[in-house]
């Protein structure tokens, strides 16, 4: 790790002030992505502005079907929140299967989506749930928020403060883990809302998370795994690496979608 100056922010405004002071300052949430990158010298911020102690960014509110999750909420808290489980168990279930207990105890939803790793889980949920990302400056629709591999609509001094969504009638998430990293090698979140079905795929797309038209069309007709028999998705624009070819990922998208629907239907 290169040497770095640490600052603890007491409020969102304080964090913005602090981040502007540093030459190449970065926000720090759970550090589960940023710190390993710094340890291996792949990231070298001059300053870290720690967001973990900002009370406003923490906690989960559920009123009716409306869910608001503070950006500083850990995966572990998302996984175990009873009110959230009651309205959208798939979301908690997703959080419960991120990394390992240590990662879930530290890593945050804000950090995960700000990072937008193409193999991260939350982006699929946010897209399929048509969620809104709340920042210190504005509200951004999830579809506009994730712009590419490790790319988001965030400006340098923009902080994700919360994520909002309306719980759908039914939802389910299933992922195939990369054998080595155990991140999502293909993860599919399906959500059946009042009038549409949305299906988002993570871990597979060359440009990060995307919606699968083919699967949405099939599931819109019948929200059941059987509707996906014979359905294929194009391998074009899917990632290929030593763990999975794009053909294999294309096949996994359909298999994971089937399993996600089965879960959603209970």
């Amino acid at each position, binding site marked *: 790790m*290169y040497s770095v100056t640490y600052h603890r922010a007491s409020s969102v405004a304080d964090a913005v002030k602090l981040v502007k002071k540093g030459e190449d300052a970065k926000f720090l949430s759970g550090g589960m992505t940023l710190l390993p990158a710094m340890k291996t010298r792949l990231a070298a911020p001059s300053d870290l502005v720690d967001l973990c102690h900002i009370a406003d960014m923490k906690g989960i509110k559920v009123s009716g079907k409306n869910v608001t999750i503070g950006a500083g909420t850990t995966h572990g808290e998302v996984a175990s929140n009873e009110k959230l489980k009651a309205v959208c168990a798939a979301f908690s279930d997703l959080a419960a299967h991120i990394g390992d207990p240590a990662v879930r105890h530290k890593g945050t939803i804000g950090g995960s989506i700000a990072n937008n790793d193409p193999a991260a889980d939350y982006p699929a949920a946010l897209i399929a749930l048509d969620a809104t990302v709340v920042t210190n400056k504005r509200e951004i629709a999830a579809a506009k928020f994730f712009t590419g591999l490790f790319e988001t609509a965030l400006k340098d001094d923009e902080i994700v403060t919360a994520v909002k969504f309306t719980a759908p009638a039914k939802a389910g998430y299933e992922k195939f883990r990369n054998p080595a990293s155990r991140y999502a090698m293909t993860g599919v979140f399906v959500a059946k809302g009042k009038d549409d079905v949305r299906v988002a795929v993570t871990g597979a797309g060359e440009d990060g998370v995307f919606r699968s038209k083919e699967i949405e069309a099939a599931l819109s007709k019948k929200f059941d795994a059987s509707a996906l028999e014979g359905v294929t998705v194009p391998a074009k624009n899917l990632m290929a690496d030593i763990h999975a070819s794009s053909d*294999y990922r294309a*096949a996994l998208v359909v298999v994971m979608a089937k399993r996600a629907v089965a879960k959603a239907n209970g």
Partner: protein
Amino acid sequence: MGVEGIGARVARKEDRRFITGAGRYVDDMVVPGMKHAAFVRSPYAHADIKKIDVKAAEAMPGVIGVLTGKQLKGDGIGNLICGWMIHSKDGSPMKMGAWSPLAVDRVRYVGDAVAIVVAETKGQARDAAEAVEVVYKEKKAVTDAVQALKKGAPQLHPEAENNLIFDWEIGDAKATDEAIAKAAHVTKVHIVNNRLIPNAMEPRAALGHYNKAEDHYTCWTTSQNPHVARLVMSAFYNVAPENKLRVIAPDVGGGFGSKIYIYPEEIVCLWASKRTGVPVKWVADRTESFLTDAHGRDHVSEVQLALDKNNKVIGLKVDTIANLGAYMSLFSSSVPTYLYATLLSGQYDIPAIHANVRTVYTNTAPVDAYRGAGRPEACYLIERTMETAARELGMSPAEFRRINFITQFPHQTPVIMNYDTGDFGASLNAAMKEADYAGFPKRREAAKKRGKLRGIGFSCYIEACGIAPSKAVGSLGAGVGLWESAEVRVNAVGTIEVLTGSHSHGQGHETTFAQLVNQRLGVPIDSVSIVHGDTDKVQMGMGTYGSRSGAVGMSAISKALDKVEAKAKKIAAHLMEADEADIVIENGELKVAGTDKSLPWFQVALASYTAHNLPDGMEPGLKETAFYDPSNFTFPAGCYICEVEIDPDTGVTEIVQFVAADDFGNIINPMIVEGQVHGGVAQGIGQALLEGCRYDADSGQLVTASYMDYTMPRADDLPSFKVSTSNTPCPGNPLGMKGCGEAGAIGSPPAVMNAITDAIGDNDLTMPATPLKVWASLKAMTRH
């Protein structure tokens, strides 16, 4: 069996310290004035070094010194060596290319060390290492051994034309060709044994300390054999004469072979300590471990198995190409030769065998022994081939093996080894029973109903442990003898220290060796301390690898105990005015047989040191040394049966059952033996399903250089193992032990692959059988 003696299931004494984080590893060692080192490493797989400029680095904060290969050479530090001479079949010696501890004018793999920076802190050393300017001229690289042998391939060492290190053979080519010519059936198989990266939990580390006042060096290092390290560093690298060099290997967190060898870093830290005047510590980070620890395996072979009309094996012909990486590591030449081809007969009576082995330089990390070392490669080859032959013949794989088993012992194979004892049928029967082999067809049907493909696979392995008779290995090219030493020091109050040349880095010697002493002298194991890992404390010894610490290391202790016992009996006889021949040692007492006369152990020990009343002419004290040189290898063997279920939608393999029935000879501590089997099988399953080192063919970059891409086995990849032993005591050593440290890693990969290929019906699948490969194979077959 006493509660703590041979055969007792005693919990490991050392575990309290390890699992409470109180172990003391090289990185825990602190010497006054100690500073920190970082290595400048090649980012290229193959390049000429045009220029090294250290000025900017020297000016960085905290920097004490920046040293390069030129200075190292100037100070007369020698090149690294391979200590086992192999001759090609044309009689020429192996072609050893120069391996300078710091590269001088050329780098040959990504991670090759180029310079060392010593600074006040580790961070400063790393910062300055990045500031060392090395001008490289990149050359074409080759990472695959088969490609490296081809015409026009990039050349690594001027000494080795066509990158060929040696072209060696064993066995009878003519007899084998004749067997193939007259065979009723010939099974042909192409075998790939994947390259593995060791991944010991503790990364390699070295702390070099030159004491100017005494003109003496101390090296703390992560070594499986500190005495060998000292010998090699003084005899070949000119670091210091042996009497001025102390090597300490304290607690070491796993080795699996990778910590046998002498690497550049420990030599350079010692040298740099003298150069800079400060003690120099280096600890590898995980990336350095991936890049520079000696890798394992990496063989490609063509196999022909000749069968007569009764389905008896009459010949085996093997042509192997082995990748040794960019430089020849310390024992690299022995692994694909004498540790490999001598085991190709497996458990079978094969009248004619011939193996040809070519070893090759490539732009990859050096390859050397890794848990099993050559024997996993042999076992995988013969067991995949036997399974394939059984399938081609339409025979039960168990029956086909059974009719070809060796049943008479001793048995001389056509490839040097003389198997002393064994009962292969017994292990096969035990495994088949435990696995409910008869019930398999039903289980397969049930799986099919659930949409799963179920398969079963055998592996009847044999390996050679207890390395090794010094005279024999000397005649085969070894630069060292492979005996072991022990000293048993009885203290005046009867407590005991055992100084052993073996080294424990996870094996549990502090417990098992004490159990042996308890068995012999009745002293509680808490009163027995095992001392190892320090060349200033312990007499010359050869260290731990090749499952030798029981069969060889404990045999040395047993010999020393014989002497201690003999002297103690003399003293007891004298004190109790009895005949020496009537003295027996029982439950911590020396008794006169057939009487009620006895003396407690501690009184005899005390008498030896007070020396007030010893037999005439007897020297005081009770301390004995022994060197034990084995008369033969030992031959652990067994049968493993693996059962898998495959999800055809995803290609995921689940191991639903794994049975291991082993013959390890006599067992000191069944719990430790089971632990060794569990760990070995986990490693073997890792090789079969998960682990595969990958270099980029063009750039020579290591693609699997972190846990993000290199898949280590995790608990949830593994079933609950069913392990058992049925043992035939080894006649060759006093304790009847064979060794159990590597069996699991040797025997399991073919069992897993035989099961998967049985399930999916594609025999060409290679390790690791990742979900991607299994899925692609199933998809290709449904297309046809």
